[in-house]
């Protein structure tokens, strides 16, 4: 009985407990459903927000990259400007230094050799005074003696005494003075009296003095005065006999020099340097596309400059050879000019300072660029104390202003050197021709192609298209739904199965599937962008390519035209002969003494 009572009581308690549990489960189930609906929409929002944030972040990174590039280019620009500034500053300092030193050197020249100038001026004055007979012989004599005292070691001073003694018929003094002058400087004295005697119309004396002068010359080491002699000879001022003598001597010199091994080669090299120095830079507006898009451009540019040199050389020689020799108004002036050249130019002892002076002048002229100045100085070679005859010829022909060469002398120099000029020019031409690139490389961005004469346009356009297509395909192949996205999709599908038993997993299912579709949408958009980008790139590159090919065609045409002008020089020099360029209408003398 009692057992039954317990059992009934317990059963009712158990029933109550079960009903409470059931209520709780119901409550729990209803709350879970509520979480599902509200939270899923929240999660979706969050994911799209995160996606938006990622997009923003991506843009910021891209902008940061742009800013970084801009900063880098600014730094490069700054470095470039800084270097330019430093160089500019250095050049300015070089100019200032050169200007200061130039003043000092000129002061030193004036201080040390200023009195030589007095002697030179008086020498000219005496010669002119004698001409016009306005000065008393005593005055001339007195002035000459004063100069001897003022310039104790200068060769011109005893020459002046000899001259005045000659005028005064004082043979003994004249001879003594001449001996002293010869002792001081035999060559210059001989030349001085050659010119003075010629000025007086005394051809025999002039010729004797001239022979004395020439007999002392070594063609390997000619003194600077030979400039005057050749100028006089080529202008025909020494008369017919002396001219014949000069021709013989000059030919002898050249024959003698040519016997030396390596001499002719040296001449050719000298002429090559001199001719090459005439080369000018190409116009910077020519072949703009070729210059920008061809790695071969520098070679092409050098070759074109070399080809354009033919016409420059032709014009240069032609202008000299076709120029009419207009002699000075009278013989007296011509002789005066020669004498003036002899007596007014500086002496050997003045040369070191004169060299410095010239160097500083060149530095200033080259805007402070010492290297360029040094190069020009080396090319001039005008301050060599001794030069060989053919070097003089080069100087006469190529540097007439600096070598004091008249037109007649330039013509003679060209005529005597024509064989060397021709050889040098032929070698230069061959060198230039051997440097012309057969194939022209083209580089547009990363695409490279080659053309010879621009005729393979279609082939190159196709190559460019193939290249860009390949690049586009490569870009498209990279623009795909990645492993992560596919995994996301698979994970989403896989989780669905588990989500049926555990509904909260639907959150992740939704997230995974959403991520996949966002990625897919992006890939589709990028594909369209890539297609458009490569299409535009092709159009742009094709335009550039056609412009470059057009430049190549123009270049080849112009090069061919310019190169053909190399024959002009040969044809011009072919008929040139030294005999044709000796001026012979100068044989009238004026008796002034």
């Amino acid at each position, binding site marked *: 009985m009692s057992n039954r009572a317990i059992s009934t009581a317990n059963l009712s308690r158990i029933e109550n407990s079960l009903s409470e549990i059931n209520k709780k489960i119901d409550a729990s189930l209803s709350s879970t459903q509520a979480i599902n609906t509200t939270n899923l929409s929240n999660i979706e929002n969050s994911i799209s927000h995160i996606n938006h944030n990622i997009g923003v972040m991506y843009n910021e990174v891209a902008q940061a990259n742009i800013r970084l590039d801009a900063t880098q280019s600014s730094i490069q620009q700054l470095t470039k400007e800084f270097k330019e500034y430093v160089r500019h500053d250095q050049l300015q300092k070089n100019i200032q230094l050169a200007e200061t030193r130039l003043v000092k050197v000129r002061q030193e020249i004036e201080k040390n050799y200023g009195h030589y100038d007095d002697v030179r001026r008086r020498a000219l004055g005496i010669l002119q005074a004698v001409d016009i007979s306005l000065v008393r012989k005593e005055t001339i004599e007195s002035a000459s003696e004063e100069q001897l005292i003022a310039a104790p070691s200068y060769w011109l001073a005893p020459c002046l005494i000899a001259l005045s003694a000659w005028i005064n018929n004082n043979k003994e003094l004249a001879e003594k003075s001449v001996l002293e002058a010869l002792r001081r400087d035999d060559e210059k004295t001989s030349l001085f009296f050659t010119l003075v005697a010629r000025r007086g119309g005394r051809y025999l004396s002039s010729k004797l003095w001239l022979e004395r002068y020439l007999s002392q010359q070594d063609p390997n080491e000619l003194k600077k005065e030979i400039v005057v002699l050749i100028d006089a000879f080529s202008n025909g001022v020494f008369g017919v006999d002396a001219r014949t003598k000069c021709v013989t001597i000059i030919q002898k010199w050249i024959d003698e020099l040519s016997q030396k091994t390596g001499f002719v080669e040296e001449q050719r090299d000298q002429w090559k340097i001199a001719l090459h120095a005439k080369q000018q830079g190409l116009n910077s507006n020519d072949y703009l596309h070729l210059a920008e898009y061809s790695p071969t451009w520098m070679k092409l540019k050098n070759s074109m400059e070399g080809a354009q040199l033919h016409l420059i050389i032709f014009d240069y020689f032609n202008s000299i050879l076709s120029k009419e020799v207009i002699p000075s108004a009278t013989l007296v002036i011509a002789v005066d000019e020669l004498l003036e050249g002899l007596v007014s130019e500086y002496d050997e002892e003045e040369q070191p300072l004169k060299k410095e002076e010239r160097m500083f002048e060149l530095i200033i002229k080259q805007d402070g660029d010492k290297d360029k100045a040094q190069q020009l100085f080396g090319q001039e070679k005008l301050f060599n104390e001794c030069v060989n005859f053919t070097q003089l010829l080069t100087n006469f022909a190529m540097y007439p202003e600096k070598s004091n060469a008249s037109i007649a002398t330039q013509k003679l120099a060209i005529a005597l050197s024509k064989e060397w000029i021709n050889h040098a020019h032929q*070698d230069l031409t061959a060198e230039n021709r*051997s440097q012309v690139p057969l194939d022209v490389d083209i580089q547009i961005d990363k695409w490279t192609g080659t053309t010879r004469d621009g005729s393979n346009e279609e082939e190159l356009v196709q190559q460019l298209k193939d290249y860009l297509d390949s690049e586009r395909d490569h870009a498209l192949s990279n623009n795909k739904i990645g492993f992560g996205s596919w995994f996301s999709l698979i994970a989403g599908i896989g989780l669905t199965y588990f989500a049926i038993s555990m509904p909260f997993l639907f959150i992740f299912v939704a997230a995974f599937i959403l991520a996949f579709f966002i990625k897919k949408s992006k890939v589709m958009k990028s594909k369209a962008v890539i297609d458009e980008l490569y299409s535009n790139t092709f159009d742009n590159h094709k335009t550039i390519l056609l412009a470059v090919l057009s430049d190549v065609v123009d270049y080849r045409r112009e090069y061919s035209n310019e190169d053909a002008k190399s024959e002009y020089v040969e044809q011009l020099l072919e008929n040139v002969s030294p005999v044709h360029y000796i001026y012979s209408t100068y044989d009238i003398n004026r008796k002034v003494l």
Partner: protein
Amino acid sequence: MRRPIIGTNHNVQVDFQINRSTKTTVELQPLMVEKLLRQKRSTSYVDTVTRLDATGVHCRKEDVEKMIEELQNEFPELLEHQLPIGIVSKCYLGEPYEVHSLDTQLQIVEHYKRGSVLPNGMEKARILAMNPNYEFVEVFTSCICAVARNGQISMIRE
């Protein structure tokens, strides 16, 4: 009587013609060689070398030997190692051939297509050889000489 075993042939052929060799045995100095190479080439030499291309892709051995003999005659003062390594000239066989060369050591004529490199340092002569202003180019160890139709020389030193 003993049988003579020596001097049985009394009809000895005596050749009185002396083979005079004009080939020098003295090596010239480089500057002298250069001077020599500057000299205008003879017409017969230029003609012979110019005919190099006329024989087609394959050159007969006799032609090559004749050409080398002509070359040696052109420079009798030079020793063998001072002679040209080879001669390069424009090839008129048409595309894709550009130049051909006579290798004087190997005694062969080769034709070279566009893009193929000439051996033994002869590549440096290619551009000049293709230039219509020159008939052919001689390649020496120290220089190359471009020869014009009239035999005039343009030299490029190394």
